[in-house]
């Protein structure tokens, strides 16, 4: 089976990941992808760098379980999640979620579901460097609400 989850410091290539999802199954008629990137501003302050920490072992297990849940909920054919850790700069790619299915509706939904799930349940933490010094990013209540739309109680923020 194709690799589904990668936690890595190095960058990733969207084209290569989408090509792998397309080639993995001949029934694929749709691939939907989301990429999260580092912004140069957050909470009204400029951000020069962002350090991403995670819980090795748990992170991979948590995301594998999320993908299993996406397969139970949606009629999808493949899924791929890559999340970077370590030191990142504005415009850098942070996360990729890509999903394949026979028709577009299922992959659009599963992609959003996985991203909402990951935001509040995968053990990653962001620390930003701002002109006032370093600060840990606060969890957002809006992310918990996004997951609640899928009937899951996030209990994070």
């Amino acid at each position, binding site marked *: 089976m194709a690799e589904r989850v990668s936690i890595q410091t190095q960058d990733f290539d969207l084209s290569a990941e989408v090509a792998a999802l397309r080639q993995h199954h001949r029934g694929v008629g749709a691939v939907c992808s989301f990429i999260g990137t580092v912004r140069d501003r957050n909470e009204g302050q400029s951000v020069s760098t962002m350090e991403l920490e995670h819980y090795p072992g748990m992170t991979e*297990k*948590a995301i594998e379980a999320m993908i299993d849940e996406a397969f139970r909920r949606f009629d999808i054919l493949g899924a791929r999640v890559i999340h970077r850790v370590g030191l990142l700069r504005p415009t850098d790619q942070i996360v990729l979620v890509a999903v394949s299915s026979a028709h577009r509706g299922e992959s659009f939904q599963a992609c959003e579901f996985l991203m909402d799930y990951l935001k509040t349940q995968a053990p990653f933490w962001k620390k930003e460097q701002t002109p006032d010094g370093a600060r*840990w990013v606060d969890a957002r209540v809006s992310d918990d609400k996004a997951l609640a739309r899928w009937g899951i109680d996030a209990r994070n923020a």
Partner: protein
Amino acid sequence: MKIQLRYFASIREALGHGAETIETQASSLACLRDELIARGGAYAEALARGRAVRVALNQAMADETAALADGAEVGFFPPVTGG
């Protein structure tokens, strides 16, 4: 029983280390957290009740009512902010 503790992000920084092995009789995650708070100092501050602290048991998000067993791995960390 012996358990492994892991700390992450702001909690790891506040405690000054990311892991330790301890002997405990705590029956649940809540009891374990109280035991650590009772150490005082940085532990009392970082794990204080009323502070947003999430707990993982054996690398899965857990409720504090979850029971502890010998050899368990428990992680304490602030709300997650990935993605």
